[in-house]
């Protein structure tokens, strides 16, 4: 293993010496929703123009994103699972958690709505889905969305439907999970941003529609966290801080609010509120 690593490294020095070390780059781990919706593709070029820093990101579930931070492999995080994030910061892995924007979760499902959940509260909807044994697709991947879904099941006061045959754990990203739910005519919980993206992919006529929305428990808060320089001496703390500051600046907040698909805003900026 070791000689091979050295050989490869030597090769990469020869071939890539010029490109690898040119310019400053900031490595971020984020959730699938910020990438799938195209928000980061819109923000990154502006960030590069403003600061000269190139933003690179890897999009995964919030669980893996936090793990990458804990292992010092990324400099900054953009994630959405407030409780888990607070533990992360509490453990000394991250600093300066700043709330940046939110969207909300919605329960979507086939228009036929066999479990009759349309317009109900989240708790009632979950009870009805369980009662009817209607298919429900869960991310099942420790992502921010999954964490919140589990919380909601817990709040119904009954055990998690972990082993029920109608409970499908996809283990995949949000858009993929919506796609699977559509194939199985299942309900699922999604952030509104990803849903609007899905709607726009289907030219505004998606097979799954929003059935439950607007409940207070469905708020989906995104935050930026800098990976702690104390925990990880090798992280680019200064660059991470400039990104974090840039995200909460008035101009970027406006950019986020103006980011639309099908004429609908996907995220609501709320830094410092």
């Amino acid at each position: 293993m070791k000689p091979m690593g050295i050989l490869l490294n030597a090769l990469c020095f020869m071939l890539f010496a010029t490109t690898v070390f040119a310019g400053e780059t900031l490595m971020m781990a984020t959730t699938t929703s910020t990438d799938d919706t195209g928000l980061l593709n819109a923000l990154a070029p502006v960030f590069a123009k403003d600061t000269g820093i190139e933003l690179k990101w890897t999009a995964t579930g919030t669980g893996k994103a936090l793990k990458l931070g804990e292992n010092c492999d990324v400099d900054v995080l953009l994630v959405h699972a407030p409780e888990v994030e607070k533990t992360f910061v509490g453990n000394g892995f991250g600093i300066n958690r700043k709330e940046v924007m939110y969207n909300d979760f919605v329960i979507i499902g086939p228009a036929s709505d066999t479990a009759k959940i349309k317009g109900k509260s989240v708790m009632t909807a979950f009870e009805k889905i369980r009662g009817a044994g209607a298919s429900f697709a869960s991310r099942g991947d420790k992502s921010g969305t999954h964490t919140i879904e589990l919380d909601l099941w817990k709040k119904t006061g009954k055990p998690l439907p972990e082993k029920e045959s109608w409970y499908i754990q996809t283990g995949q990203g949000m858009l993929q999970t919506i796609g699977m739910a559509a194939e199985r005519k299942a309900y699922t919980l999604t952030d509104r941003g990803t849903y609007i993206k899905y709607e726009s992919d289907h030219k505004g006529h998606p097979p799954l529609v929003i059935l439950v929305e607007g409940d207070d428990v469905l708020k989906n808060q995104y935050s930026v966290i800098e990976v702690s320089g104390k925990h990880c001496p090798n992280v680019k703390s200064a660059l991470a801080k400039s990104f974090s500051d840039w995200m909460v600046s008035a101009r970027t907040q406006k950019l986020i609010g103006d980011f639309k698909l099908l004429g609908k805003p996907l995220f609501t900026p709320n830094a410092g509120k």
Partner: protein
Amino acid sequence: MDFIVGGIVKAFHLLLAGDQETYSAVKATIYVSSLSMLASLVLGIPSGFALGYFSFPGKKALRMVVDTLMALPTVFIGLVVYALISSRGPLGSLGILFSLPGIALGQAILALPVVAALSAMSVESLDSRIRHTLMSFGVSRTRLFFTTIREVRFGLLIAALNAYGRVTTEVGISMMVGGNIKWHTRTITTAIALETGKGMFDTGIALGLILLMIAFAVNLSLSFLRKYE
């Protein structure tokens, strides 16, 4: 199922229109596969040849180990390589996580047992009568060695092509070690995974066809190599 036809049309469109994202993924794929193939051939052919040519105690057991390693799952290699080159891992100081050389390291680990095992196999399957005949002609040990190399050259080519097939098609290592970063570590296979995840099935099919075209080009050039030898 119109996305299959749509994908075929799109493949040509992406290539001919010079779509930058596609070409970036094509470049990344060619770069990592070349690097990993180079490393695995340089290390794998001599060791595979030695494994098949010489007899030594424990040879059978070693062969068994190498053969078994041919079945290494790519996501598992991805995870192990991540653990090694993560900044808190033993090779963290190399700084090759989320980079193309990082992916190439994982792919080299994937390809090495394939190259070594198939090289060893082709040496072993060489008719032993050739060896005996040559020896009865009184050729020197050195001559015998080089004759064997000449005789197994097609076997080595097959070993290389097999390894190349596994390297260009894997997605587990590229995803875990490379991170699927746009313009940097997004290879054709991770791009397919992403587009499929986004529900863009036609783009996924198009990228799959482009990958096949690259494989075809590689095989085509090797077939000329074979003809003119």
